[in-house]
């Protein structure tokens, strides 16, 4: 047996390690939770890491998963060993190619972090819905249950595919296994070498398409032979189970870890057995052992090879004593009479029962159940409930476990408090951290330290919330002498150690619910040890007393500040954990932390290493044990939900916000995924340390602050002064300065103090300075806590003020438009987000008539991730109707909306004409001839349609009822297709192109962050030349795709390229013109993102530099000018006025390249400088063309295409 070391890594890294070692071409596309596998592969190849044959695998990012699968298919056919990684909808996009790959008997392994599918809602979390949708493709399917198995079975799959020629899907549970950090035994290169027979590789290469020995493969076959040809593959599948078992056996000889295709654990004479696959099988294994210790006689059958399904092997693995079986599926097939694994098991047993030599005297009773969808917890209590159900005379079939189904009554009850004995010797610890405070990375580091310096098994799992700003992370860490099979979270009352890294969490969460009796509680608090007890909410104080909890406190931010670490508290809190948890001798642990710091920062930051060391040393002096106070105080946890909220919000939304979503019964959930708007307003996240304060005396009421606010947390409203009667004493307003408002009207700029994130962008944009003190502006930041109560009252009052009549506002000015109510507010987007101001602007201008098709990505997450949505309504209930279909189909999805609206409008108009005789002739005519180009026209039409509806209600005819149901379409509706550059430039480009070409009246808003922001910053075709991003770690060599130019080529598309920080009025005009254009419109909006490596408080400055450097020229192309003989293209920015270098060196995404490959960086910046000048000149020429002279237009375009093609991509190392 080999000598091996251990690794402390997660499932994704385990899979990627084997994949990178055994492949030559890796085609990837980011999708959670599989993205990390591609990232690892890319990083390793970029670093020159070689595969088994000494070659560096080529890692290529494609435009979609369909593209990745296509590329893999081609690479395989051309003889390379190839692989890919994906999940969820991404896997579904690969299905067509998978049929081909399997049909042509091509060996490959796809590694899948199995994830839910988008149905009534999207979920990034884990279940088997995606892999189950591919079980018919002809792929072998191998399931891993934990990170160790991921590494092992990845290799077994690779070995089996090469030997058998049948392609494999190797899958493991998304997040639960893909992201679980565990200590595992390394599969060495030598083992991999032994498992891969080079003659199989040679055979694969010999089958490759080659002009040296050409064949035709993939023919079109006719009725005469297709069927027979389809049956030729049977022998490959019939021998596959034996081949896979052979690979498992060889692997066992090399490593000592023996796997079975169907692995039974439990009593040899069990009567009750659960069959399942994936991480849940480990929890069942643990629970069965616990029950069998009490002589319950139960077992679990873990399915590893799911396809091809080998019924005889499955039956052979079951004890003959079995009388009742529960098959658990982690997927749902609506309308089916059972989920896939259940049906496979039933079929196997039925076939056996029908055979002459049946294994069982009586066919066991089989029930099927669903569990764990979207990473729903699957705990021993639930598992025991399933075993108990099997004891019933009439056990429930098609049950669910883990939810309360009070609608169809499928669910089983379970005991929340049931615990196995698995953790009698386990140390369990829970940490509450803020997303950005480094808690997760510190904990990953702690696991590594403990894993590597002790014999203990280790497990780490991390729970995140859905917000991008102010997100909470909860880390669950286990260490113990026995293998950890607990694929579920640490339960209430189980943790020996609880840490709260942010004191504000105490107000929101019952952090000590996890603590067991006598647990250690570590609190980061700025309050010193003498006073800290009095700052704790009463419930926390009571729990400390009841559970005899040992409380420690540290002012981590104080230590960080003093030791030069700024706001970084991760190392400090980690030091505290080791100092008081007792898991390692403190001296050893501190030495290990320092060692880890050295390794992490090493030569990249000698100074930061020293600062960390200083912080570690100071931490120990500042950590204090605090005795529980004598009395429990009266401080209550903050729970503030306005009673204005609807019953649904109170009963469902509020419960999800409070972290009790697991308890919501089925009947309370919307059955089609529809949720009410306006719910983000209830969250009150209180993230800002400072908020802006309005100086009404010097403000010129320009409207720039509400325009730029990414969270709609500063608003302006115009109202009559008489409305101020009941205003709070400190409420500020002044007479409105702009012309056109009636006498006696005031304006107020009001901040929502508990929704503001403190990004400072409003203060930054404010152009007004105090004449006698230029550091003061009309907006100035001030500490939030002192202002919170006062401004909360002012905000509440502000909301009660009526909205100004929108038909009377000058919406073509910033000041006027900003008095429109934003119908997009308080999103969970990052602090200082560059996208949301555009979304908010669209909602202000068109929200009351808007349908939104939103591509998956950041905007669908901050726009529609439960528990709440920032999309909201006007006081009369109108607002944007929003839906997220998928990532790839958004343009088509939005166009479908337009088609529906237009068709129904046409039908309504026809019906109106047909019914005219029974209606007021003047009303009918007015409706048919309405001019809805401006707000006043839209308002008047809505009033007419209200009259029409009243009239129709009085007519008893089918036509009238028909028209009544369609009449709303007589009013103008605005369709907005919103998404990021990943959608518009890459995965959805085919659809975008088609929709632009269609001529339909839709508005596409591309929030261009120049990178796949939501999944962590992977390169897209919008990524500029020279930028460093994931999959372009050496700097992107090709230029950014000019989507605007492609769209302008159609000549009937309104195209605008905007950057509100460069020129806000241009952005506003572009939105107005785009919506007014009766055909397709495309707005490409420059959106600074934290992925750019800039301080987001400099967002506007970066936009300005992007414009002035020529990186982001501003323009509008309005096709309506063509028939008027005017040039359609208007350049809105001046020629590049600052060197391109100045811009790129201000952003880390670019300037990082100067630190790694300065020569390449120099060459790329020179290339891009030429390009931006060329492009500006080209646009300039286009804008000066005489469009009535089609020959000239054609000539300029042709010339531009030639020169645009000249600066070709620069290959690696050849700049």
């Amino acid at each position, binding site marked *: 047996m080999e000598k091996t070391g251990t690794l402390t890594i997660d499932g994704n890294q385990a899979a990627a390690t084997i994949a990178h070692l055994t492949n030559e071409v890796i085609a990837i596309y980011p999708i*959670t939770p599989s993205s990390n596998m591609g990232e690892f592969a890319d990083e390793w190849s970029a670093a020159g890491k070689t595969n088994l044959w000494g070659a560096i695998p080529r890692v290529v990012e494609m435009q979609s998963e369909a593209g990745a699968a296509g590329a893999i298919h081609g690479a395989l056919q051309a003889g390379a060993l190839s692989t890919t990684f994906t999940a969820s909808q991404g896997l579904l996009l690969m299905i067509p190619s998978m049929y081909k790959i399997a049909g042509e008997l091509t060996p490959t392994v796809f590694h899948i972090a199995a994830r839910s599918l988008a149905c009534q809602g999207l979920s990034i*979390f884990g279940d088997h819905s995606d892999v189950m949708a591919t079980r018919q493709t002809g792929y072998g399917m191998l399931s891993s249950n934990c990170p160790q198995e991921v590494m092992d079975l990845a290799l077994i799959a690779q070995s089996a595919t090469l030997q058998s020629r049948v392609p494999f899907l190797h899958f493991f549970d998304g997040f639960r296994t893909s992201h679980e950090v565990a200590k595992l035994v390394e599969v060495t290169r030598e083992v991999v070498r032994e498992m891969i027979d080079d003659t199989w590789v040679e055979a694969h290469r010999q089958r490759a398409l080659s002009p040296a020995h050409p064949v035709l493969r993939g023919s079109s076959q006719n009725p005469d032979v297709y069927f027979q040809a389809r049956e030729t593959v049977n022998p490959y599948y019939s021998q596959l189970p034996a081949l896979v078992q052979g690979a498992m056996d060889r692997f066992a000889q090399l490593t000592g870890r023996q796997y079975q295709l169907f692995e039974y654990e439990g009593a040899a004479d069990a009567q009750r057995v659960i069959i399942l696959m994936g991480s849940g099988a480990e929890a069942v294994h643990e629970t069965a052992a616990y029950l069998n210790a009490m002589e319950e006689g139960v077992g679990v059958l873990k399915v590893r090879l799911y396809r091809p399904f080998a019924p005889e092997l499955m039956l052979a693995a079951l004890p003959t004593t079995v009388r009742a079986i529960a098959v658990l599926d982690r997927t749902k097939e609506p309308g089916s009479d059972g989920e896939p694994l259940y049906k496979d098991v039933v079929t196997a047993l039925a076939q056996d029962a029908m055979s002459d030599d049946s294994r069982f005297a009586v066919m066991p009773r089989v029930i099927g159940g669903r569990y764990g969808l979207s990473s729903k917890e699957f705990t021993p209590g639930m598992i025991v409930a399933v075993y108990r159900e099997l004891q019933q005379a009439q056990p429930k079939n098609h049950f669910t476990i883990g939810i309360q189904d009070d609608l169809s009554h499928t669910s089983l009850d379970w005991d929340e408090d049931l615990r196995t004995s698995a953790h009698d010797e386990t140390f369990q610890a829970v940490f509450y951290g803020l997303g950005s405070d480094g808690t997760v990375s510190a904990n990953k580091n702690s696991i590594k330290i403990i894993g590597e310096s002790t014999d203990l098994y280790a497990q780490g799992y991390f729970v995140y919330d859905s917000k991008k700003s102010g997100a909470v992370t909860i880390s669950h860490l286990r260490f113990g002498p026995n293998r950890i099979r607990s694929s579920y979270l640490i339960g209430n009352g189980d943790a020996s150690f609880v840490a709260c890294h942010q004191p504000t969490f105490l107000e929101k969460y019952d952090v000590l619910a996890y603590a067991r009796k006598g647990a250690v509680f570590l609190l980061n608090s700025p309050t010193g040890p003498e006073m800290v007890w009095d700052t704790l909410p009463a419930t926390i104080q009571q729990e400390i007393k009841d559970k005899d909890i040992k409380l420690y406190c540290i002012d981590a931010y104080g230590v960080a500040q003093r030791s030069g670490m700024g706001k970084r508290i991760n190392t400090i809190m980690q030091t505290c954990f080791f100092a008081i948890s007792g898991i390692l001798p403190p001296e050893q642990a501190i030495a290990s932390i320092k060692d880890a710091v050295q390794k992490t920062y090493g030569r990249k930051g000698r100074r930061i290493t020293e600062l960390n060391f200083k912080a570690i040393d100071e931490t120990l002096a500042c950590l204090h044990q605090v005795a529980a106070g004598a009395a429990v105080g009266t401080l209550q946890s903050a729970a503030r939900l306005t009673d204005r909220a609807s019953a649904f919000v109170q009963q469902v939304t509020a419960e999800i916000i409070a972290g009790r979503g697991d308890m919501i019964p089925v009947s309370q959930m919307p059955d089609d995924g529809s949720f009410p708007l306006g719910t983000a307003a209830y969250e009150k996240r209180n993230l800002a340390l400072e908020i802006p304060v309005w100086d009404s005396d010097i403000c010129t009421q320009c409207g720039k602050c509400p325009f730029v606010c990414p969270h709609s947390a500063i608003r302006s409203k115009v109202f009559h002064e008489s409305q101020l009667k009941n205003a709070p004493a400190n409420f500020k307003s002044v007479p409105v300065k702009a012309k056109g408002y009636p006498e006696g009207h005031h304006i107020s700029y009001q901040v929502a103090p508990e929704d503001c994130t403190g990004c400072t962008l409003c203060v930054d944009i404010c152009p007004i300075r105090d004449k006698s003190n230029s550091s003061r502006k009309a907006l100035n930041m001030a500490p939030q806590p002192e202002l919170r109560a006062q401004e909360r009252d002012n905000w509440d009052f502000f909301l009660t003020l009526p909205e100004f009549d929108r038909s009377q506002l000058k919406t073509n000015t910033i000041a006027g438009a900003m008095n429109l109510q934003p119908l997009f507010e308080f999103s969970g987007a990052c602090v200082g987000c560059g996208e949301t101001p555009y979304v908010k602007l669209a909602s202000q201008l068109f929200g009351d008539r808007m349908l939104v098709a939103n591509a998956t990505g950041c905007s669908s997450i901050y726009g529609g991730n439960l528990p709440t949505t920032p999309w909201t309504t006007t006081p009369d209930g109108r607002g944007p109707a929003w839906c997220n279909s998928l990532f790839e189909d958004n343009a088509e999805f939005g166009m479908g909306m337009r088609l529906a609206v237009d068709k129904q409008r046409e039908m309504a108009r026809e019906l109106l004409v047909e019914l005219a005789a029974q209606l007021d002739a003047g009303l009918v005519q007015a409706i048919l001839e309405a001019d809805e180009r401006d707000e006043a026209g839209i308002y008047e039409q809505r009033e007419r349609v209200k009259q029409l509806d009243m009239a129709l209600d009085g007519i008893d005819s089918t036509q009238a009822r028909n028209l009544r149901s369609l009449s709303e379409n007589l009013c103008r509706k605005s369709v907005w297709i919103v998404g990021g550059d990943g959608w518009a430039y890459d995965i959805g480009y085919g659809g975008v192109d088609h929709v632009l070409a269609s001529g339909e009246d839709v508005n596409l808003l591309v929030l261009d962050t120049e990178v796949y922001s939501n999944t962590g910053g992977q390169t897209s075709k919008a990524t500029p030349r020279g930028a*460093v991003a994931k999959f372009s770690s050496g700097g992107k060599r090709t230029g950014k795709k000019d989507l605007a130019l492609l769209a302008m080529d159609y000549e009937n598309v309104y195209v605008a390229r905007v950057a509100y920080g460069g020129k806000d009025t241009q952005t506003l005009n572009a939105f107005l013109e785009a919506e007014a254009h009766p055909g397709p419109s495309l707005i490409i909006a420059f959106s600074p993102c934290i992925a750019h490596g800039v301080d987001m408080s400099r967002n506007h400055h970066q936009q300005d530099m992007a414009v002035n450097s020529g990186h982001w020229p501003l323009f509008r192309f309005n096709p309506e000018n063509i028939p008027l003989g005017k040039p359609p293209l208007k350049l809105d920015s001046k020629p590049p006025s600052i060197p391109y270098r100045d811009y790129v060196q201000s952003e880390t995404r670019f300037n990082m390249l100067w630190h790694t490959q300065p020569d390449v960086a120099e060459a790329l910046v020179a290339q891009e400088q030429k390009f931006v000048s060329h492009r500006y000149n080209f646009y300039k020429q286009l804008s000066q063309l005489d469009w009535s002279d089609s020959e000239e237009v054609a000539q300029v375009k042709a010339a531009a295409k030639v020169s645009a093609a000249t600066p070709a991509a620069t290959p690696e190392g050849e700049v």
Partner: protein
Amino acid sequence: MVDLSTRYLGLTLKNPLVPSSSPLSKHLDSARRLEDAGAGALVMHSLFEEKIEEEDATLARFFHQQSLGHAEADSFHPIPEGYMSYEEKYLEHLTALKNSLEIPVIASLNGTTPGGWVSYATALQEAGADALELNVYYIPASCKESGSEVEDRYVEILQSLHSQISIPVTMKLSSQFSSVVHVAQRFQQAGASGLALFNRFYQPDIDLETLEVVPKLELSTSEESLMRIRWIAILHGRIDCSLAITGGIHNARDVLKALLAGADVTHMCSALLRRGPGHLAMVLRAVQEWMEEHEYESVEQLKGSISQRNATDSAAFLRSNYMRVLDSYQPPSGVLW
């Protein structure tokens, strides 16, 4: 043949023309051109304390703090394997300069606090720097900080630096010390082997449109050299360390005046930035011609010959000169007083 060589910081330079800290040293080619033009030594561009700190912050934000706290993305930028830190790049460049130049190379550290960044001096010494220039570019804007505390700050940084290295350290001074001679003496006692007079503080400007303060870079003029020449003349012979003049040295006349006043070397920056490295050769030639014409044998002979101590009218560098100058001023033609 005139002997142009000079002693500076214990080093023998072939002539007293030493390009000061400027972007010209950032590129090997321009550094070589300076040497080819005849530079006696080269002061490198500065390693800035703020840039070291800024890099720390950037690294912390984008690489070291890998947790974004979101399930879909736990980090953005990949950590580049071959990352070269600002310090490493500076050291690498210093090594490259040393390898390709014959003349001495003086590294430059620029910062205002005696923090950990000073420890980079050791690495600079190890990388081959012949000497180190310390530029405490400090604007004393606190009403709580007295003049002597400002001096203490300089001394503290200098001592901290001096204690770590064995190569000579020269100190770049601010012209705004209230007692230049006294402070110069303190620096000498604290370990400075040389003094460079004076730092040019780039003056911030006010943008009348945005009402924001904007940085502005104005190159020097010859006029600026006069104030420096005065202080060189006053210091010469009074303190036991090398003297360099920096700021406003544009042509041979400026160089000669500085040498006559007592400078050991003359730093040049703006003129080279404006005219290119070749300008140095012209200045050098002109210096040589003037010396030949005026029958000087060597720079050593020339140095300090008109310092305050040696000048025929030693009061000329002091207050009396001021009165004479004021009284001598006549209104320009057409200007009515």
